[in-house]
């Protein structure tokens, strides 16, 4: 410091205060908040350091690769969301809260017809209206888009035809909302109405005017958008199994029901760059879609994610109204804001597919699941959206958690003239999961086995492969079942409660991040990237594109960085809003954010940590291996008095380059089979859950009341238990809505009758039972600090748990959701008639007589529990594939070991012979290009 040109900030340094505090004006850079309140550090809190690192934190599931980076800062502690203060003060800006100077209000003209050709549109009257600044129609935007590159079938506004009531026809930007609404009334559209289809089974037939034309890839002349066939295992033999459950389910369509309606603000800035503000789960897809729709390079577009008032999958497609706002803003030269009325939210939809699922579960004399045969026909509505994936998920996501002898799946998604279905929490897995779990209850009833025991005796172990080749790493399924069994008092309640009172169990299985990025080869680009930037103030700015939609992804990523660097959360700043500053991230869907984004963040933080530790090494002379990161201080492992403040080390690290930056990325390991569709359902890890629900059923009215639910979810490691519990309880709420009250109801003319929150029945606080969230931590070897997803999987088990509990209460099986009182009542009535009972209060109560199999399965469950623990603890990691339970050698290809073992994705005529199977009918059509080949 003696060089003449250098001047210490704050003047000379000889007037030192006696009380030890710094003299005002004498600090160098940003001491506040960077030095820690105790410069001398305590020894590390070894109770928070894992066993594997010499600490005392127990690790019942063994060590984890991130153990060396646990500093005890935030991981595993209940942490309020980092943006919660914006929300509770009303300062969080959602889509409609973005008010730019000089804004215009946009409104959309929508189709009044289910299906019609547009003959002409006359906008001249609207354009002439005072206060109208821009009018646009499909003529202004002819490029297609869609969330999946393989099925781009949407436009900003209708081109030649409208495909459902509410389809976009034109849009207007005006000085006020009133003027814009008025202008819509002055746009004159001539339609030629065509015959519309509403029943999904009609979509399987050839049509004169299919809703879309996929050119040479079109399937016959039908409205089949996607069809899937998968056959694995002993699919012939399973039909001879002694215990069989066959059911035909109807699931109503569902809406996400988020409280914030869609809204968007578009503004072309003075440099000609589009600034688009939107509450999006997946800003990157909007970014791509805008570029291709508007014919503007991506670098000329900045997508700004606002706060998102609930997504649940419903804000993950690029939307036509986002294109409309951009087009109107361009035409008018002013910012344009479009805010949906609640009804419009239902027109754009993308909710859960209405489905008809034929479910067959077979069990053999040893109490094993001989096979599952599923036929799922799903109603896609007017556009493809995520439907390609949904069609797979309806099948492949019930190949676990149980070991099965065979799996036969036919799935088809059809276009109908309804608002488009898409992805919704538990995407594609929810309905078929409900059907499987209820069928399992049914076979248990037949074989005289407690459904808890049956499940525990048929679970796949950790570190195995499923029948279709998914790589399972960690699983806490067994612990989930054990916990809910214990906590709910299952053994004292099952089949032992009076009429009208029942208990039921259900399990769930879900992906923790889709293994295949939609837009690129995972070998080529990573799934997620995070940049860290640490400046002279010592705080760390995290640049990420992960979209916080209320689930707390900003908090999770902040926690990950904070944990590795041992910094308090207030020193971590998340910048996740703008595509200009964020590295590309695929957004919040498929429960990928915690797993992928936090893994990327941890990698970045480790890189930053290395740089800072190397700087500390230079200062104090101890090798980074013997240094510990404490609260804003880096110190010698064995003598905490020796050390350097975080800030001093950071400044040292910055000295040469003036910067301290790091970047981390996550990509999935290679995995999965090679068959067509093998990538669907692949994930780097899977979550598991088991719920028990206790219900009260009023046999006289059909009303079901869930009294209490015990909800165990294996999320690997709860990074933030507060948020995990919130996700579990919230999932229960949404799942209970689907099983008991929610449905998008279409009238006899095909119109959606309840596009509002009064008649779309989301449960109120009164219907919500007490939920006991139980967190199970299976410590996933590849998850961030062992974590897996907790946002979607927790929804699955509540549906079958409630349906099974209804059976326990009144002895009737329902197979139509929602189980609204009128539906349940008519089932009860039928049962009464069948049994010759006049008063439903006289219905017999189902009872349970264990068969000899019960003891066998209890023993097997015990053996398997031991097996699973050995595999978890790395004491036994011999290979395990689905089939070992049936006597197969896991190290040889299964088809070689048994003649009847099939692995096929192309159906034979025999596979499609059953005329009652619906989705199978989709395979009777021949794809156009193949017909041409034939000719």
């Amino acid at each position: 410091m003696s060089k003449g040109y250098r001047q210490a900030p704050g003047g000379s340094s000889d007037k030192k205060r006696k009380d030890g505090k710094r003299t005002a004006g004498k600090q160098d850079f940003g001491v506040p908040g960077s030095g820690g309140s105790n410069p001398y550090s305590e020894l590390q809190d070894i109770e928070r350091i894992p066993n594997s690192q010499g600490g005392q934190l127990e690790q019942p599931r063994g060590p984890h690769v991130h153990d060396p980076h646990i500093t005890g800062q935030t991981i595993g502690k209940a942490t309020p969301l980092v943006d919660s203060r914006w929300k509770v003060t009303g300062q969080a800006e959602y889509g409609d809260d973005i008010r730019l100077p000089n804004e215009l209000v946009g409104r959309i003209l929508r189709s009044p017809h289910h299906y019609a050709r547009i003959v002409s549109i006359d906008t001249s009257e609207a354009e002439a209206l005072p206060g109208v600044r821009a009018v646009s129609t499909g003529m202004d935007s002819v490029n297609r888009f869609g969330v999946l590159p393989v099925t781009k079938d949407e436009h900003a506004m209708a081109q030649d035809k409208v495909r459902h009531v509410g389809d976009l026809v034109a849009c207007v930007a005006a000085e006020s909302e009133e003027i814009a609404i008025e202008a819509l009334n002055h746009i004159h559209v001539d339609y030629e109405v065509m015959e519309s289809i509403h029943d999904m089974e009609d979509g399987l037939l050839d049509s004169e005017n299919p809703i879309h034309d996929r050119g040479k890839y079109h399937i016959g002349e039908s409205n089949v958008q996607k069809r899937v066939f998968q056959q694995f295992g002993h699919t012939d033999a399973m039909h001879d199994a002694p215990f069989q459950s066959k059911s035909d389910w109807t699931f109503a369509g569902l809406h996400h029901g988020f409280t914030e309606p869609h809204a968007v603000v578009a503004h072309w800035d003075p440099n000609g760059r589009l600034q688009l503000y939107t509450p999006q789960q997946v800003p990157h897809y909007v970014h791509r879609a805008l570029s291709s729709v508007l014919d503007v390079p991506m670098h000329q577009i900045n997508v700004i994610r606002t706060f998102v008032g609930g997504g649940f999958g419903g804000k993950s497609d690029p939307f036509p109204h986002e294109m409309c706002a951009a087009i109107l803003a361009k035409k008018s030269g002013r910012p344009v804001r479009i805010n949906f009325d609640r009804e419009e939210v239902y027109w754009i939809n993308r909710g859960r597919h209405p489905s008809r699922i034929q479910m067959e579960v077979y069990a053999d004399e040893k109490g094993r699941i001989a096979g599952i045969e599923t036929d799922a026909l799903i109603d896609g509505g007017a556009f493809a959206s995520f439907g390609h994936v949904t069609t797979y998920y309806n099948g492949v996501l019930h190949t676990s958690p149980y070991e099965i002898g065979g799996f036969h799946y036919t799935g088809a998604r059809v276009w109908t003239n309804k608002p488009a279905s898409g992805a919704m929490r538990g995407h594609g897995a929810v309905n078929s999961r409900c059907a499987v779990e209820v069928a399992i209850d049914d076979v248990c009833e037949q074989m005289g086995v407690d459904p808890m025991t049956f499940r525990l005796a048929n679970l796949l172990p950790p570190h195995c492969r499923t029948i279709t080749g998914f790589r399972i790493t960690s699983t806490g399924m067994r612990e989930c079942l054990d916990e809910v069994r214990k906590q709910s008092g299952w053994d004292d309640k099952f089949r032992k409660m009076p009429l009208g009172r029942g208990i039921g169990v259900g399990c769930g299985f879900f992906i923790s991040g889709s293994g295949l990025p939609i837009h690129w080869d995972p070998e080529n680009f990573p799934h997620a990237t995070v940049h860290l930037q640490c400046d002279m103030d010592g705080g760390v700015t995290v640049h990420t594109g992960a979209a916080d939609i209320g689930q707390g992804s900003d908090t999770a990523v902040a926690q990950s960085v904070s944990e590795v660097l041992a910094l308090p959360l207030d020193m971590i700043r998340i910048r996740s809003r703008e595509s200009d500053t964020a590295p590309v991230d695929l957004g919040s869907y498929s429960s990928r954010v915690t797993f992928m984004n936090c893994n990327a963040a941890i990698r970045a933080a480790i890189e930053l940590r290395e740089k800072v530790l190397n700087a500390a090494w230079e200062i104090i002379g101890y090798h980074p291996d013997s240094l510990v990161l404490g609260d804003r201080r880096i110190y010698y492992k064995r003598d905490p008095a020796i050390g350097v403040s975080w800030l001093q080390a950071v400044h040292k690290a910055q000295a040469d380059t003036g910067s301290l930056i790091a970047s981390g990325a996550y990509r999935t390991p290679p995995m999965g089979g090679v068959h067509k569709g093998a990538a669907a359902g692949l994930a780097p890890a899977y979550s598991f859950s088991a719920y028990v629900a206790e219900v009260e059923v009023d046999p006289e009215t059909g009303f079901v009341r869930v009294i209490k639910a015990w909800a165990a979810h294996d999320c690997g490691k709860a990074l933030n238990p507060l948020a995990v519990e919130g996700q579990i309880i919230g999932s229960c709420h949404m799942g209970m809505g689907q099983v008991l009250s929610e449905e998008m109801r279409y009238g006899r003319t095909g119109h959606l009758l309840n596009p509002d929150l009064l008649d779309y029945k989301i449960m109120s606080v009164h219907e919500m039972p007490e939920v006991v969230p139980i967190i199970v931590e299976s410590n996933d070897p590849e998850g961030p600090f062992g974590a897996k997803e907790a946002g979607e999987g927790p929804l699955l088990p509540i549906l079958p748990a409630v349906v099974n509990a209804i059976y326990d209460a009144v002895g009737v099986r329902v197979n139509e959701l929602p189980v609204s009182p009128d539906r349940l009542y008519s089932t009860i009535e039928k049962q009464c008639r069948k049994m010759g009972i006049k008063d439903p209060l006289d219905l017999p109560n189902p009872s349970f007589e264990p068969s000899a199999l019960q003891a066998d399965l209890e023993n097997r469950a015990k053996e398997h529990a031991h097996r699973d623990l050995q595999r978890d603890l790395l004491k036994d990691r011999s290979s395990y594939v689905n089939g070992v339970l049936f006597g197969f050698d896991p190290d040889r290809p299964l088809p070689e070991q048994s003649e009847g073992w099939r692995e096929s994705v192309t159906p034979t005529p025999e596979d499609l012979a059953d005329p009652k199977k619906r989705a199978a009918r989709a395979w009777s059509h021949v794809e156009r290009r193949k017909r041409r080949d034939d000719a």
Partner: protein
Amino acid sequence: MSAPIHIPMVPSDPMEAWTARVNGAQFTELAHSHSILLDVLRDHVGTLGVKRGCDMGTCGCCAVLVDGEPVLSCLTLAFEVEGKEITTVEGLADGHHLHPIQQCFADHGGSQCGFCTPGFLVVSAALLDKEPDPSEAAIKEAIEGNLCRCTGYQQIVTSIQEAGEMLRNGLTGDDRTEAASDPHPVGPDEPTLPPGDAR
């Protein structure tokens, strides 16, 4: 085919002066005779914390307090509350000190996506104002008109109970503008080096 109808949206009568106290400050805004309170608050007063969820009285996102009583601003005519005292979510905190209900919603998971939160907060604040130790049933009755899609209500009920506890103990929410860590930490400016280190 029936004859099309057309309900004209323009023109309307000229706007008139509308006056009310919002969060303690007097506002005079131009509004239409038929203006809805929610629109005036969002578009004119600028309290964008008042949310438009369903716009039909179901979701409760738009709830505000009028003279201390919770009201659905989406189903209230602006001129019907002229001259009254309106409190929105922005008016709950005392400067940077959060109202206990705000603090507890943040700390106990009462808010996930946050969109319904402003409505829940004003309704709960009004409840705790009258009844600082409400039973669970009273809490449920108070929030039965608010719809939350994220939380399943459980953590909201907990948050309200915790806020009641804070209020009863005379606590206020913290003020984050206070430095979270000691800005002038005691101790040496220089690194503490190992004994005998030459540097």
